[in-house]
């Protein structure tokens, strides 16, 4: 169920990018997509009854049913990369605002090459 939701999240994010011309909103869309794919990865590594992949006093043996640690490691990476991209995107957004005094890509109107 969450897997389907995560896929829908990707699509919603895509819709956010597709339908909006406001750079901040586009970035929100990008973030929603990234969240979606992160949850999707986790859901792929998950199976029902799987326990968190940490050996503790309770779950003490590697023979127990742990969920996929690799998928989780990938998501950790993906989250950090997402942060980097979002930060850069926001800086671009601010540059756009500084240059054209608007966040609206539609109002920039083509942006002639120098």
């Amino acid at each position, binding site marked *: *169920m*969450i897997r*389907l*939701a*995560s896929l*829908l*999240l990707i699509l*919603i*994010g895509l*819709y*956010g990018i597709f*339908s*909006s011309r*406001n750079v*901040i*909103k586009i*970035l*929100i*869309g990008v*973030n*929603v997509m990234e*969240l*979606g794919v*992160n*949850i999707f990865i*986790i*859901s792929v*590594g*998950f199976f*029902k009854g*799987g*326990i*968190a*992949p*940490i050996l503790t006093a309770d779950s003490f043996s590697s023979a127990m049913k742990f*969920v996929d640690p690799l998928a*989780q490691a990938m*998501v*950790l990476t993906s*989250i*950090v990369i*997402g*942060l980097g991209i*979002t*930060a850069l995107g*926001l800086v671009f*957004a*601010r540059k756009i*605002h500084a240059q054209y*005094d*608007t*966040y*609206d890509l539609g109002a920039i109107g083509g942006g002639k090459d120098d």
Partner: protein
Amino acid sequence: MMELFNILEVGISVLLIFFALAAVLSKKLLTGIVFLSVLSMAAVAAFALLSAPDVAVTEAVIGSGLVTFIFVASIRGLRKAGDGS
């Protein structure tokens, strides 16, 4: 145990989709960012549910914390220009 999982699963899925739609469809930028933050919290819940505490912690700190912060920091002081919608 299993039933609780199913209920939580459906609940979180609905929340995820709802907040995602809210974030993408919101008219005001700040509302969108807040919803994105809330969506991120829902994702934290999802990660926790899917036995991924590491990811949940990271997402909580980075996703709903830092990302929200830099979003807000970015548009702070610019809302007066009337780009809210």
